[in-house]
């Protein structure tokens, strides 16, 4: 049990670091560095804990990103920065890089290497599984980050009462 918790915390810490690295690439203000790390950490913790309890990766990603979308409103009031600045970097570690890689790999095998008919059918299965998981994760990231603002029907966080 303890090792599981430690593993989850480690992977969450690395998501925080990944979020921070992208934040620095996007030149975030110095005062939001800690916020970006904490948001990346929390989002990673939510996602990987849910996945540990066998929630599907698409739903887990959506819930984690939705959490970032909601929490950014009180945080924006507290640290006085617009939400885009610290909301986009924590969602970048959610990008389904490995699924994209698997899709490219199986497309390449399908076109250039495999001649055996049975294996080609298997490859089509891999292409579709990985490709569509990737697309659904991307949709859930985009929807999760913009849904909270849409639900509140406001165009600026400043107008939302604390």
């Amino acid at each position, binding site marked *: 049990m303890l090792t599981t918790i430690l593993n989850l915390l*480690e*992977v969450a810490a*690395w*998501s*925080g*670091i*990944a*979020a*921070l*690295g*992208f*934040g*620095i*690439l*996007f*030149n*975030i*203000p110095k005062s*939001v560095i800690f916020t970006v790390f904490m948001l990346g950490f929390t989002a*990673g913790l939510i996602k990987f804990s849910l996945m540990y309890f066998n929630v599907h990766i698409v739903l887990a990603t959506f819930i984690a990103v939705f959490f970032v979308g909601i929490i950014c409103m009180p945080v924006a009031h507290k640290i*006085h*920065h*617009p939400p*885009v*600045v610290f909301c*986009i970097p924590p*969602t*970048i*570690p959610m*990008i389904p*890089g*490995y699924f*994209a*890689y*698997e899709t*490219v*790999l199986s497309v*390449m*095998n399908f076109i*250039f*290497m495999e001649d055996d008919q049975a294996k080609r059918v298997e490859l089509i299965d891999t292409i579709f599984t990985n490709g569509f998981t990737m697309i659904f994760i*991307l949709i859930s*990231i*985009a*929807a999760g*980050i*913009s849904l909270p603002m*849409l639900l509140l029907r406001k*165009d*600026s966080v*400043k107008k939302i009462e604390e």
Partner: protein
Amino acid sequence: MDSSKELIKTVDLLLDISSLLMVSGANTNRVNLSIYRFASALHFNTSCFISHKSIVMTVYEDNSTLSCTRVKNIPPYAINFSIISSVSKASWTAVEEHWTLDKISKEIETIKKQKRYPKLVVLIAVSLSGAGFCNIFKGDYLNMGVAFFSTFIGLLIFQLTHKEKYNVYLRIFSASLIASILASLGIIFNIGSNPQTALATSILFLVPGVALINSFTDFLDNNIINGMVRFTTGLMTVLAIALGLFIAMILFQLN
């Protein structure tokens, strides 16, 4: 001051602000909001057409026939969230404290002069995030080392080619190709328990996250054209990344 001269100055300033925001990676809605706030602080009305490469804007007053329309071309994009944040703050204070034209333009000049993080800091931070990605996709510490190294060299190539003014997709392609060649060496020499993850994550630093998220929010705000442009830019970037990865995989016969 002559009122027509003031109008010209205002439209130039507002165009400057909106092109600064577009370049820094704000979505269209945010650009519109900022223009609206600054214009209402100066007691003008504005209408504008924002596209990816240029902005057309008309500034006018309610009770006069005077108006001014100008077009501004947008320089190449460089995402910079510090600028978005400072412009947003300045727009709120401008409305609350009724800033004058000169004060706003002075503030925008200081915002423009803000320094970016040093290149070495960016290199190390992004390489660490590459290693972090590798951990997320179940790589061990050796794989993370490979991912760190290939991300570092890939981003270095990306930064160096920026000075030579190569086409941006060519730069993305070469960065992705070199990063994935380096990470493929990890598979050839079988470094770590899960060398494929290092290859999959070594190219993630090029992912056009901001372009794709902005494209989606633009679609939701019914800025379809800008959303399409951003989506296409993102798609082109993804294709360039995939092509680099693809060629590295063919070179090393990975399957």
